[in-house]
């Protein structure tokens, strides 16, 4: 059987960063959720969740920083990408309900390397990540020195971020794993590649740019 043609979406580096970050995030969620849901709180006794939460926090804070240090250019590009909103993005917003519910692919304008939904997820993380980090650090290191109101509102802000992030995280997982239209997306974060068809269907703009880029360079 002839192999389906595949295109690379994420480098090894990107995938490692992604999964380590995911691990940190899930660790934080799991060890954090004990403080949110009282009836499982008993599991959290004797502070082990606090220790793990702190380790997770270091990873969670550390990965983006590391990424910045290792791949400063692509990090900046990623941020630029997330902040750059064109007409396709507004088109995406308009088309999203039909697209995701009814599979109306025609309504969806062609998307770049990341679609607008992913941009939103990224932006949210850009927002909540620092909130987590700053309030986390305040609560971690400055609880005895700053007024307790700072801690109290830090908990609040940490929680707001938590709720928003977790809800969006559900969406993220759902779209990555379960949504019928997205059946190919998961592999992009495992082996880094998607099929040509998938790329064309979901990231048409990106696929075309990529195809153009590859030709002059002689390709493989």
């Amino acid at each position, binding site marked *: 059987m002839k192999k389906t043609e595949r295109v690379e979406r994420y480098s090894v580096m990107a995938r490692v960063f992604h999964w380590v970050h995911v691990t940190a995030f899930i660790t934080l969620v799991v060890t954090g959720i*004990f*403080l*949110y*849901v*009282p009836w499982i*709180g*008993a599991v*959290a*006794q*004797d*502070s082990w*969740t*606090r*220790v793990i*939460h*702190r380790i997770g926090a270091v990873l969670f804070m550390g990965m983006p920083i590391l990424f910045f240090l290792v791949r400063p250019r692509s990090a900046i590009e990623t941020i630029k990408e997330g902040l750059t909103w064109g007409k396709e993005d507004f088109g995406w917003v308009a088309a999203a309900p039909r697209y*995701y*519910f*009814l*599979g109306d*692919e025609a309504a969806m304008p062609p998307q770049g390397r990341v679609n607008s939904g992913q941009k939103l997820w990224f932006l949210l993380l850009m927002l909540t990540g620092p909130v987590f980090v700053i309030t986390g650090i305040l*609560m*971690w*290191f400055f*609880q*005895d020195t700053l007024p*307790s*109101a700072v*801690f*109290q*509102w830090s*908990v*609040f802000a940490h*929680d*707001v971020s*938590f*709720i*928003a992030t*977790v*809800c969006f995280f*559900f*969406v993220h997982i*759902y779209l990555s794993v*379960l*949504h*019928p*239209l997205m*059946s190919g997306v998961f592999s992009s974060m495992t082996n880094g590649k998607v099929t040509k068809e998938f790329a064309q269907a979901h990231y048409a703009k990106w696929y075309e740019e990529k195809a153009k880029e590859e030709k002059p360079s002689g390709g493989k």
Partner: protein
Amino acid sequence: MAEKAILFDPTKCTACRGCQVACKQWNELEAVPTVNLGSYENPPDLSPNTYIKMRFKELEYDKSLEWLFTRRSCMHCTNAACVEVCPTGALSHHPLGFIDYNEDLCSGCGYCSQFCPFQVPRMSGSSITGIRKASKCLFCADRVTNNLIPACVKTCPPHALQFGDQDQMLLLGRQRVKELKAKYPDAYLYGEDELGGLHVMYVLPHKPTVHGLPADPRLPASTTVWQGILQPAGYVLAGLTVLGLGLNYLVARANVKSHGKG
């Protein structure tokens, strides 16, 4: 079961501080290293090894000197911020009214110590590792659930501390305030209404702030907004998200199939 309360009458207290030591004796708490801070007061603050301390204050009132002695310990609130924010159930309302603390359940999050309007609970251990436990006055839970009175109350030579049914203590406290009114127009029974009623009430000759107590202790606004609005909102949002995604899954699966795509 009738709720119990402690009534503290600073006008009878002689600051012998038997309560401070009796508490340590019963609860096996070690002495805190201290230095003299230009006053009789010590240790300087509550700590994991100090559940109760007396505050000393010199005050000129009505042309004569007063030396105020005020108890500082857990107030065992009815509307208790610590219980509201405790995520693990380590802090809870005991049917006898006091805030029961089950150290085994404490995860060391420190919320109680940060949300308490009286800044009572203290953390032992390290906030860096997070390996720690909260500590605070236990209301001598093992004693009071075995028909003994709390160690601090029992030890008080001038009967400045009394223990009994909350309504009884209320009556005593009101009576005492009435007696004090002649000399102290500001006399006040602190804890009758504060935070839904405290299980440690003070007969105050002066305004609460003079005694170093918050005039109007409340649950911090953050507690209400966080516990009262945000937390449930979080459940609602998460629920809605999951519901929405499920709905989407059902709809999308049917539609995407009908489009004939795989």
